[in-house]
């Protein structure tokens, strides 16, 4: 019975990992691709680790598995935050369908980001930057 449950968990996790990799290949821009990397990938790895715990059925293995899962859940958001911040600050090109960019508005209001730009300052932004919504 344990082996059956472990097999099912293993296949579910593998499918999530495959979906994450396909998303990494197919999605259009860095920030959107990070959804695939950090959510689907972590969930898939968690399912496979859970399958290992069910299959072994020992306390020591289960504790190790819990340690790995907790570590993945703790570090994935931190790493994603750092990469997204670095990509945005380095002036990545957003996907053409993006039409809400709240960080752009906030950075225009913040005096710390004013000194590097030599363009004329834009009109004082109020609220959220809205682009034209995508056509389709």
């Amino acid at each position: 019975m344990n082996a059956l449950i472990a097999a099912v968990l293993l296949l579910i996790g593998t499918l999530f990992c495959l979906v994450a990799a396909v998303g990494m290949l197919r999605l259009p821009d860095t920030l959107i691709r990070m959804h695939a990397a950090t959510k689907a990938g972590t969930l898939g790895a968690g399912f496979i680790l859970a399958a290992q715990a069910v299959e072994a059925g020992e306390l020591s293995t289960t504790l190790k598995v819990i340690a790995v899962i907790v570590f993945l859940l703790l570090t994935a958001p931190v790493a994603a935050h750092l990469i997204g911040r670095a990509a945005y600050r380095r002036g990545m090109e957003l996907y053409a369908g993006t039409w809400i960019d709240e960080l752009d508005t906030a950075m225009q209001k913040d005096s710390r980001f004013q000194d590097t730009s030599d363009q004329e300052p834009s009109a004082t932004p109020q609220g959220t930057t809205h682009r034209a919504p995508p056509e389709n």
Partner: protein
Amino acid sequence: MIVEPTTILAAASRLSLDLLLVSIALASVRLARGPQAADRVVALDLIAVLVVAFLAAYAIDTGNTSFLDVAIAYALVAFLGTVALARFILRCGRRRNKDCTLPGRLP
């Protein structure tokens, strides 16, 4: 005809290992293609998570749970690597650099 559950688990773990290898290959395509440095770091992060999953699946396949220790150590090192690369991109090199050309396409 009754199939043993352990046979099903063995077949599932072989299939899982193959599909995880395919996943790592797909993520490697994004790693090679870029186009920006941040894209490559995201792809490396996903590959690290997939390798942890692969190690867990391999532990099931061989029945040797000491691969879990490898998974723990690999997850730690991969997180440190991701953080270091993200800071490298953010600061644009080892020192803070105003005229950054780092995220451009590879020649």
